[in-house]
């Protein structure tokens, strides 16, 4: 089954797991849905009030950014690894 890698600051909301396996899912959206069903405290950390991924959340399937695939409709296989990757930028200005 696909596995989701949980970044360090979010592990406290995922039962202190660094990886969560999700069964019976065909897309990234379904995988993330299964994740927040298993660990409801993660929902507000990943999604905004409109139910969309928060601005700093990038999702990768293996090495591919889902924004350049089919977004949350991107298909996933049992062997796939889904990464939750923070988007980081800034500057003194």
């Amino acid at each position: 089954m696909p596995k989701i890698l949980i970044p360090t600051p979010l592990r406290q909301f995922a039962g202190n797991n660094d990886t969560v396996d999700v069964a019976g899912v065909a897309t990234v959206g379904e995988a993330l849905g299964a994740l927040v069903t298993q660990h409801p405290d993660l929902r507000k950390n990943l999604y905004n009030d409109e139910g969309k991924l928060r601005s700093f959340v990038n999702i990768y399937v293996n090495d591919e950014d889902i924004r350049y695939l089919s977004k949350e409709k991107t298909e996933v296989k049992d062997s796939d690894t889904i990464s939750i990757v923070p988007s980081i930028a800034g500057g003194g200005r």
Partner: protein
Amino acid sequence: MLKIEAQPWAVMVEHGRACFPRECCGILVGSAGDAGDNVVTLAIACTNAYEGDQKDRFELDPRDVIKAERAAREQRQGVVGFFHSHPNEDAYFSATDLKFSAPGYSNVVMSIRDGEFSHAKCFIANFDQTAAEPEELHYA
């Protein structure tokens, strides 16, 4: 509290100096210390991916973050934060830094003045990225 060991601290300062007068950026890998605080054991100097004038802007390539996360997991550690420099500016957490941060991570800002390290501070953005709290910073 964030404690940075001597070797990663040297990597960070050198990256800040080498990139001057542009902003540098990088990734902090570490683990929880005895008191539950994070100890940084590895600093990864990254290429500033911002497409524009980098004297006051930076952007991390998410692919660098993925690579760091994989390397960290092999050592049973994790990505605990990020660092960047402010050339010829103080080490504050700007509105831009806050807007493009991610809650829960430590953010070390280094002031590099005239190409030399001046001082550094650390900040953590709150849940909804409306404010950042200072985090105690110790470095070798």
